[in-house]
């Protein structure tokens, strides 16, 4: 009996080890650098967004990134939603009207499209009319839409932060493609986006340092909000549900115990 036992365990071990051995060397090719570790206020089961940070993030997006990156699924009104940057209704009206681009509306009575300043109900107007136009202005590369970008990359916020602060000189001997910049956090290492941020580029009025690093952090948080605008509501309801379920489980545990006490099982 015990001999057979050893034999089967040996077989199991052999199968496991041989598969591990043959699997091991297959790693390597095309590995991406893991993002920097960075802490955000919205992490953890009770984490919430930092309003000031989202407001600053919006400001950098609007003044820098919006020139190339669209945000099709977010409307100006969302900037005032609970759980977001929570700009006041008056501020939202101003932000919509002062967005760097006007909104295309129409057709009017004569059948023509026309441009007008944004209103809170408008979605962020895109920088390019279509993908081809976007590629034409970016040496063939397409600046992706930002609405859900933080969920469309592994480890989204940390990745975006790392990408923005991660521009470096290419390692000696590396040939860059035309119009490409070296960034070891980008898969493949060559990104078609020039470093978009510089110190003191966007004015912060609340005393927060105006550095590339701080801008990048604020942007990552802002992009997490655009991707997951219901995060705070989700965690709040989640906590209530958890408390309810755990208490109910406790009650049921004792009910079950009492009920089964007289049954041999």
């Amino acid at each position, binding site marked *: 009996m015990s001999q057979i*036992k050893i034999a089967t365990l040996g077989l199991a071990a052999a199968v496991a080890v041989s598969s591990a051995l043959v699997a091991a060397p297959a790693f390597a090719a095309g590995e991406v650098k893991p993002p920097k570790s960075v802490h955000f206020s919205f992490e953890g*089961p009770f984490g919430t967004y930092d309003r000031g940070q989202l407001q600053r993030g919006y400001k950098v997006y609007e003044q820098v990134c919006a020139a190339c990156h669209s945000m099709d699924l977010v409307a100006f009104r969302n900037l005032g939603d609970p759980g977001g940057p929570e700009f006041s209704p008056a501020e939202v009206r101003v932000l919509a009207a002062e967005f760097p681009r006007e909104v295309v509306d129409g057709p009017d009575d004569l059948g023509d499209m026309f441009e007008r300043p944004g209103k809170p109900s408008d979605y962020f107007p895109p920088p390019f009319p279509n993908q081809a136009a976007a590629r034409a202005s970016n040496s063939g590369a397409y600046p*992706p839409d930002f609405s859900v970008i933080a969920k469309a990359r592994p480890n989204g916020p940390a990745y975006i932060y790392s990408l923005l602060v991660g521009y470096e000189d290419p390692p000696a001997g590396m040939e860059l493609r035309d119009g490409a910049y070296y960034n070891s956090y980008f*898969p493949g290492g060559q990104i078609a986006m020039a470093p978009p941020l510089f110190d003191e580029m966007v004015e912060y009025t609340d005393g927060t340092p105006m550095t590339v690093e701080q801008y990048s952090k604020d942007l990552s948080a802002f992009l997490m909000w655009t991707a997951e605008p219901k995060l705070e509501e*989700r*965690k709040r309801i989640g906590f209530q549900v958890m408390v309810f379920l*755990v208490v109910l*489980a406790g009650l049921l545990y004792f009910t079950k115990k009492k*009920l089964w006490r007289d049954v041999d099982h």
Partner: protein
Amino acid sequence: MSGQSTYHFKNPAVRWLDSRLPIISAMKVNALDFPTPKNLNYFWTFGGILTLFLGIQIVTGLVLAMHYTAHVDQAFNSVEEIMRDVNYGWLMRYMHANGASFFFIAVYIHIFRGLYYGSYKAPRELLWMIGVVILLIMMATAFMGYVLPWGQMSFWGATVITNLFSAIPLVGEPIVQWLWGGFAVGNPTLNRFYALHFLLPFVLAAVVFLHIWALHVPGNNNPTGVEVKSNKDTVPFHPYYTVKDFLAVIVFLIVYAAFVFYLPNYLGHTDNYIPADPLVTPAHIVPEWYFLPFYAILRAIPDKLGGVIAMFASIGILFLLPWLDTSKVRSAAFRPLYRQFFWILVLVCFGLGYLGSQPAEGGYVIASQILTAYYFLHFLVILPLLGLFEKTKPLPGSISESVLSKDKGGGPTDGGGGTVAAAAASAPEKRG
């Protein structure tokens, strides 16, 4: 189901109804008084959990369907609108997406429970086979559901899987075009997948009904694998198992809720938040975690047709299991050798799941081939031989006897308690 009612109800309205349509007594017989072995452990609670999850998927799915648009230009954004602008839409979607994962966690535990305790043996062969049909329908439903949000993985997953049919000799290409409704995965494909995704859960509900019907003829198996001998071996389903199942359901829901509320995208793939683009192929096309072991088997075989056959055979073989296992003893508790091969099989399935998530190159392929071979070996060689050569432990005379000897400490049963609990703890992470 069982002809004329023998119950007598005091309430005249109930009596009136029941003498014309004995639905109340059918419920009493099948859901309340149903004699159930008194020694079932928590692995018997997953049937109830599965039924609940079918309900959760149907309810959340209906709400999603009221807001979803099945068109290639709008599907992705309509799902995002559900997340942003529909009241509690994010909750419905995260419950539905994670509900699919937890449905599979529950069904895999349920299936391995059956493998461990020999629940597929006579007289429960048909019950088991209906279960395999349920698994197949679930897989088809989940595969088509994953296509609906029309992200990159939706599109490329659909492309890879539908393309498998092109491996069929002669008629392969026409069949694939017929499936697509065109010359590539496109709007007609999305539309038909939506229609089928809506329909199949209701087909599933009907098959689940048959499954439970087939269960209620022989009654439950139990951890000893010894049939019920007298009513000393059983307790009425209600309140004993309604309360126990309720407890298990709530504990399972706690884990589910942890994902829905705190890690809603953990089990999904980030690429599915990129809108589908037929011109950009993702670096690695991987299916949802619950398909990974089958995906590994598919890619283990160098030949396309061979891979497809192996993949379908890996499930199809389960239909033959009641006849491949030649042992007269059901429960692994009394089959010392089978018990070890069972755990090896569990490890092999986890291993295949891990390999399915890795690129199909070099060592990963060789490892997949070894594990795939072992998987089939288990069913086709080990099980038939084990029944002939294995020396099983003596069976208890009845359930009551085994329970009493256990209370005195030791005895022949082990009911699998300790070892199987470890499986539950590790099961949710099938992706390896």
